[in-house]
């Protein structure tokens, strides 16, 4: 018996034959599941790519802001020196 009880009644049950779905249906279900799995995988990859692109855009924007602020600060300092 496969379970963790040793009982003649349960052993009788364990020896009952198994049954399988029809071959056509089994293949259909397998194919449908694999298709769904592939779609999920593609969706996840696309989401991952979008996130990656988003992170690159955020970094670029951040960099541009820093450059702009630095340039503005330099200009302000130059102007300050010129007014003295």
């Amino acid at each position: 018996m496969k379970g963790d009880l040793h009982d003649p009644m349960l052993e009788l049950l364990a020896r009952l034959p198994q049954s399988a779905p029809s071959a056509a249906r089994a293949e259909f279900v397998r194919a449908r599941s694999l298709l769904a799995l592939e779609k999920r995988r593609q969706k996840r990859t696309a989401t991952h790519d979008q996130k990656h692109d988003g992170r690159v855009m955020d970094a670029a924007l951040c960099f541009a802001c820093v450059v702009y602020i630095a340039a503005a600060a330099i200009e302000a300092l130059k102007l300050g020196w010129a007014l003295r």
Partner: protein
Amino acid sequence: MDRESELDLVRRLRDGDAQAFDIAYETFNVRLFTFLARLMRSRARAEDLLEETWLRLVAHSDRLQPDTRLGPWLFTVARNLHASYWRSRMLEEAWADGPGLWPIASTRSPFEETAANELERRIEAALAALPVSYREVLLLIAVEGLDQSEAAKVCGISATAFRQRLKRARDLLARRLGESARPPRGVLREVNT
């Protein structure tokens, strides 16, 4: 399947590996169908729920815990789908003989039809006549080989409640088998006269 392979399989399923799905499908498809067919007593409905079970695995594969026991997980899904199916049917249909949580089957199951010998046929018939809450505990323990704690989780009950249910199920099955082995009273009377 040993625990190491199972953990590896779960990891690959979480990554959406098609080969891992194929391995899981080969390992559990017949077992799940057998379990569902004995619960449902109908091949067609068992095939429908089997399909739904696999689609649930696909839909939830990336959310599986790394230490998931795949067999019990799949049997839990199949068992819950079966319970949902009967609940929705009970809502749809007005049961003439009053509400009951589980239907009492009255026709012969596909297993009864194909059982190779008389003893198997008697066991299948006695099993099919049990309330489904008893049938499922016997199937999970004796046929699917789950241990009691795993099977209790599949049924959503405590280990103590499971042990009690298993004992009652086993006793009822033994009684039903004993009854089916005895010749009907009419026959005895004919033999005596």
